[in-house]
C-alpha cells in the first residue's frame, strides 16, 4: 500500500474535467484507489466520489493505492495533479 499527500495546485480546483481525468487514469490500473479529504474517504475510481470531494485550490488530499501496480497508479495521478490538468 502506498499513501501520498498532495496539494491541489490548479486554480479551479477539482471540477468535472480534472475529476474525469483522474478517474480515467486510475481506472487503467488494477490497484484499489482511495482519496481522503478531511474526514471524507471516497473511491478514486468513482467520478461521483471524486466530484463530491469538492476539492478546491490549496486543499490537501491523501491518495491511497493498494495493489499490484500501486506505484504506477500513484505516479500517474501525482503527475496529473502537478500538471494542473493542463489548465494554466
Amino acid at each position: 500500500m502506498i499513501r501520498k499527500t498532495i496539494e491541489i495546485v490548479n486554480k479551479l480546483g477539482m471540477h468535472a474535467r480534472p475529476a474525469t481525468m483522474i478517474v480515467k487514469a486510475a481506472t487503467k490500473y488494477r490497484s484499489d484507489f482511495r482519496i481522503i479529504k478531511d474526514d471524507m474517504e471516497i473511491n478514486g475510481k468513482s467520478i461521483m466520489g471524486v466530484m463530491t470531494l469538492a476539492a478546491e485550490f490549496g486543499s490537501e488530499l491523501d491518495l491511497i493505492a493498494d495493489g499490484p501496480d500501486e506505484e504506477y497508479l500513484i505516479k500517474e495521478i501525482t503527475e496529473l495533479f502537478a500538471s494542473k490538468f493542463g489548465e494554466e
Partner: protein
Amino acid sequence: MIILKGASVSTGIAIGKAKIIEKEVLQITRKSIKDHEIETEIEKFEKSVSHVLNDIDLLIKDLAQSKDHADILTTHKMILIDPEFTSKIKRSISEELMSMEHAISEHFNEIVDIFNNMKDDFFSQRSSDYEDVAYRLLSHILDKSTDRFGNLDENSVLIMEDISPSSVTKVFAKNICGLCTEKGSKNAHSSIIARSMNLPMLVAVHGLLENVKENDNIIIDGNAGKIVISPDKKTIGKYSKILEQQKKEIHKLKKILNIKAETSDGKKIKLMSNIEIPEEIDQVIKNRSEGIGLFRTEFLFMDADEFPTEEQQYQIYRKITERCAPEPVVIRTIDVGGDKLSKLLNIGHELNPNLGCRGIRISLEYVSVFKTQIKAILRANTKGNVKMMFPMISCVSEVLKAKKIIEECKSELKEQNISFNPAIGIGAMIEIPSAAITSDDIAKECDFLSIGTNDLVQYTLAVDRDNETVSDYYQPSHLSVLRLIKMTIENAHSHNIKVAVCGEMASEKKYIQLLIGLGIDELSVSPGRLLVIKNEILQIDSGKAEELAGKIFSALEGEK
C-alpha cells in the same frame, strides 16, 4: 424573420407550424419488483446503460471540433460507468426490490442534493451533470412506454432539444412534415432513420429553443441546412413553390412504387437497399426494395465494450433476412479500421489507418472474430436468401483464405449439430484498384461482385473527399475510375456473375445512365433514394446509355 443554421440530415423542404416538445418531466413511480424479476431487472439496467453510452459515444465522435462539449459528455460517460453507481443500483434492485427506474432516480436525487448543499457555487453547479445523465438514462428507459407527443399532424414541425431513434419512428407515424433539434448530430441513429424516411430534418441548430415559440411559422430547408422562423411573405412564397414541386415529385414517385426497376427498353436492373442499422428495414420494405444489397454490420462492433456473440448476431441477421425473404440480403462482414476497434482489439497505433488493418484484413488477422460472424450469417441463411460479402479485398488470395475459413465454420457448425444453410453466395467488394484490375481472377472465385465507389475513387485518385482542400480531386467520373468500373463489369460478365454498385455513385441520378451504359446489373442505394433512382432507371434506354458511355470514354480519352 430569423434564420438559423444547422446540420442537414436529409434534403427536402418542410413548411409548417412549430410544435415544441419540452424536455418532459419524467414521472417515476415508486414501483417494486418481485424476487424472481431481480435478474431480468438488472439485465435491463445494464442494457439501458450500455445503450445510452453508445448514444453518447456517437455524439462525442461528431463533436470533434467542440472540445468543451465533448469533455462534458466524457464526464457523463464516466458517471454512467462509475463502479459505485452500478453496484448501488444493483444492490437497490436485488436487496430492496426497487424497480430500476426508481433506484436510478433515487440515486441521482441523492447526489444532486449533495451538490446543491455544497457551499462553493462552482462545485455545486456540477449537479447539472448528474441531472443530465439521470434524464438521459431515465428517458431512454421510459421512452418505450410513454407517448409524449400528443396531437401532431402534417403541418407540425417538431422542435426539440434532442430526439431518440424510437421517437423519430413514433413522430414519423404521426405524419409530421419536419423535425429540428438544438442538439444531435448527422450520424446519430435518430438521424440515419430520419434520412431513410426522407423526413426533412435539421440538427445542431444553436439557439433554436431560444428563438422559436409554439405555433410560429417554420420553414426547414434541408437542402441549404437552415431553418427560417416566422418567415416574411416573400420567403414563404419562394419556398411554397419549391415545396409544391417537391410534392409533385413525391406524388409521381409513389406511382412507380409497385413497378419493378427496368429501362424503357426492358432491361431489368435489380434495385436494392443499403442499410446501416436494423431499424431501417421498415423503409426497405415500404419502398419495395428488391432486397438488401449492402447490410453494413459495423454498428455491432463500433463503440461496443465487448464483441457481439454468435447468438446476438444471428438474431439480428435472422430478423432482417426473414423480413426480406425471398429477396436477398447481402451481409458485409466487418468493415472498420483497427482504430475504430481499439476497445476490443489491441491493434497498435496506425499512421495511416486507411491503408492499414481494416476490412477483410482485420477478419483474417482475428480469425475467431471472423468465424463468429460467419457462423451467425450461415445460420441466418436458413431463414431466407443470405449472401456474404467481403470488404477491402485487394486480390483473389484473400477471397480464397476467407472461403477456406467459411468451410471450417461449416464443419464446426455441423459438429455442434447447429442448423445452417451451407449454400451461400459469396461476393467481394471491388473498392481497391488492384481488385478491379485483377477482377477476372476474383470473379472466378465469387458468386457476385459489388463495386464500392466511395473507396474506389478515394484509392484510385489518392484523395480524401472529407478533406476540403483536396475535395475537388474527388471525381467519380474520372477516366481511371470509369475504366476500373468497366473492367470489373466485363470480367464479371465473362464469368457469368452479376455486378452491383453499392457506393454513393448509385444514389446519384446523374451517374445512373452511365452505369447502365457500362452494363451494371444491380444498384444498391439508401432506402430513401430507392424511388428517385427507380424513376431515373425507368426513363433510360439501355442501348442509348451504352452509346453515351462510349461517347464519354472517347471524349475523356481525347482530353489528354
